[in-house]
């Protein structure tokens, strides 16, 4: 039974990280951006304070549609379930058959919830935002699917833990990492890809009509989604190359590495955000399409065994 306690412990640590860390990561990003702009910046807790305040406020409901109320919770549930499918140390809290496919869909559900939330109200800006979100999803998801395909083919499995265990370095995998970094960055909706929620253009897009608790839940879901995508990337980057992780000690080391890398990637993302302007949707669609074709070539390379 000792092993089970270790597994439980790692799962618990994972759940704690996944629930508590994301707003802090945003806090780091805000601080880094502020420093790049020669500002002092808010405390690291600021995003938590913001969420706390939003959770305490009632929401204005401009529509009777139940979707409007449910969408934030669906988004949050999806983001959390996605995070549970990832390895923390060597433990995947929810581990089954081909959970890479499930991961793909559950992450997608956050965007879908956001899209439907925007469409559930009568507001031109919400609709525009939803339409943009849809265009981004429609162009970036095929790319991600292809890249997952490369990984799955390379490792011979659709299970995230198996993929991590069996991945071997080939040129196609290295190229996949590069494209995956791009694709996940786009999917996370950081500047210059925050087009759907562009404040100055569509005043928040799908979030336009949201306020109070519901808005807070949406924000929380989005933070967790961003964390999840980054954690996934970091896991792919580190775990396959650490060798067999048998003992709890090595697993703890792996978890620490994941944690440190995630936290240290965030300032890089923040710096990218701070030094870019927002792109326009047609420009992003064009970029994504190009990346998709590059992805296809990589897939072909993978099939050839490179």
């Amino acid at each position, binding site marked *: 039974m000792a092993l089970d306690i270790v597994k439980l412990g790692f799962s618990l640590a994972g759940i704690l990280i996944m629930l508590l860390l994301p707003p802090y990561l945003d806090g780091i990003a805000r601080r880094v*951006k502020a420093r*790049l*702009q*020669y*500002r002092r910046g808010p405390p690291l807790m600021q995003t938590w304070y913001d969420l706390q305040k939003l959770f305490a406020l009632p929401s204005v409901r401009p529509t009777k549609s139940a979707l409007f109320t449910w969408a934030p919770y669906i988004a949050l549930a999806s983001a959390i379930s996605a995070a549970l499918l990832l390895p923390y140390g060597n433990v995947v809290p929810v581990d089954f058959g081909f959970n890479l496919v499930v991961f793909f869909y559950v992450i997608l559900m956050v965007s879908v919830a956001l899209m439907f939330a925007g469409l559930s109200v009568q507001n*031109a*800006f919400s609709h*525009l935002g939803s*339409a*943009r979100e849809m265009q981004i999803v429609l162009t970036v998801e095929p790319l991600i699917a292809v890249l997952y395909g490369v990984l799955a083919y390379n490792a011979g499995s659709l299970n995230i833990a198996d993929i991590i265990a069996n991945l071997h370095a080939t040129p196609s995998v290295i190229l996949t990492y590069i494209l995956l970094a791009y694709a996940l960055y786009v999917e996370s909706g950081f*500047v*210059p890809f*925050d*087009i759907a929620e*562009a*404040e*100055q*253009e*569509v*005043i928040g897009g799908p979030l336009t009509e949201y306020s109070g608790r519901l808005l807070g839940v949406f924000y929380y879901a989005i933070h967790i989604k961003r964390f999840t995508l980054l954690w996934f990337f970091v896991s792919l980057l580190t775990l396959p190359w650490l060798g067999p992780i048998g003992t709890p000690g090595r697993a703890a080391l792996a978890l620490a590495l994941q944690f440190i890398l995630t936290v240290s990637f965030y300032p890089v993302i923040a710096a990218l955000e*701070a*030094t*870019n*302007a*927002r*792109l*326009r*949707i*047609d*420009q992003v669609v064009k970029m994504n399409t190009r990346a998709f074709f590059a992805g296809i070539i990589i897939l072909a390379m993978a099939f050839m065994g490179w």
Partner: protein
Amino acid sequence: MVGTKDLEAHFEFECKACEDGRCSKADVESILAERKGLKDFYEAFKEHIRECKRMTYGQYMFVIDREVLPEAVLWWHNHPKFKETHMSTAVGTDERPLNGHFAYMPFLNVQVEPFKMDENYWVFLKVYTPADDPSFPSVAAKLPAALWIEREVKDLLGFKPVGHPDPRRLILPEDFPDGVYPLRKDMDYRHSPITEPRTEYRETPEGTTLVPMGPVHAGVEEPAHFRLFVKGEKIVDVDYRGFYSHRGIEKTGEGRLTYNQVLFLAERICGICGYQHSVSYAMAVERLADVEIPDRARYIRTLLLELERIHNHLLWVGIAAHLVGYDTGFMHAWRIREPVMWLVERLTGNRKQYGMNIVGGVRRDLLDYRKEEVLKVVKEIREGTKKFLDIALNTNTFIKRAEGVGILPYKVAKAYSVLGPTARASGRKIDARLDQATKTAMAYHEVDFKVPVYKEGDVLARVLVRMDELFESLWIVEQLIDQMPDGDIFTPIGNLPEYQEALGFTEAHRGEVVHYVMTGEKNKVYRWKVRAPTYNNLPAVPEMLKGYHVADAPIIIASIDPCYSCTERVQFVDVETGKVKVLTEAEFNELSIKYKGVF
């Protein structure tokens, strides 16, 4: 029809001297010989010209028959040799107490040669209409530059532009009662708003959806209502409704305040280009009083005008960056800008609304030891801006959003009389600092600077024009400090001649600002007309928006550097109750007496 005889009867002003060219008895031949083009115009419209005179240096007025008004305006605007001539705006005046007529007067900035202030001049085309039929053939039907001003005189004075393509309300609110015209001298103040407000929006074209940008929108700093008709994300057509910050400043200035009090009101027209308005107004009155203001005062004015331009351009480029999501650019631009604000606070006592001007000079001298400080700040700004531009113009995503977006072709710019950096980015060679005789109030003719002109006409060109201009302004400031003459800073004005007209103008950061002043009795202002550059630039924005993305709309709108409060000067609406409340003449007089001597 107004006959010549009717007019002559009312033009027996005690003019200072006929040689001055200011009165109807002056020698027409010699006046017309002063500048190129005047004679040709006189020959072309001989039968319809009732009077011609020189109002002041470089400002000529023709009183013409109203039937030929469009032809006369177009004759100048489309002059084959004077390419950059444009219709600046127009003034409507209720002159019934004087001569029983309404007067409508478009005026043009005639550019014989760009940047030669002693050759170019202003032409005023005045039309008298009988009191019972204030109609005139619409110029706007043929020249879009007149679209707004004709709607304005229709709203405020009850004129009828016959054949106007878009005769909806422009300035007055939707619930303003019919038949009440605020700028008429016999305006009855007791009217209440009508209970059922009438909105006059354009129908949404078939197959498009409406995206309402405004009246309050995160991408537009002040209230303005752009109704974008879109297909998907593409803008097909645009309807504009603005004038939500209409304050009735012109009416306030007329007849009640003294000419020096109006000056301080003028400075409060705008929070950014306040000093430009104040100088323009002062210049107009100084022209009327025919005084020469001391050199030192001219230099101090020019210095402050340029410092204002510097901080405005930095402010603008920051906002432009913010609107495309480039917040780092925004923060840095404003950080670089801040020392200018501190500097002018040192020089004048205020960050904005300097309160430095007075008709006839300036109120505070520039202390000599402050010169060092000015030079230090200029150096700082130059270095900071260079670094900033180096980074911003190398930010791929920023360029991608600005390049090829919101293109305004030269022809459209000219047809709408677009002004300032917006016009210069579209290839128009205009700059009121050098184009017209600013030498009576400012010192631009004594310093050396270039006027940057770009041909692309897109948002990026507007950014570059402004940034080039910024460096020129820094250079001007350095020269001014270097050449600053000694002497007085103020000339007393004395009494103003009655019922005389003149124009004051400066090149504000957004384009040419004009203040038309007609004096009344006892040193009061009979008619004061302000035209901020945004008034000419904004009608062209729908043209820039068509065919681009909704995402581009904020940056395109901002690219003209719109200033709504400047544009929407002219009626009091009590915001709290929503009732139209206008101070009575007695209340106004009380206010004037109460604050007498304060200014």
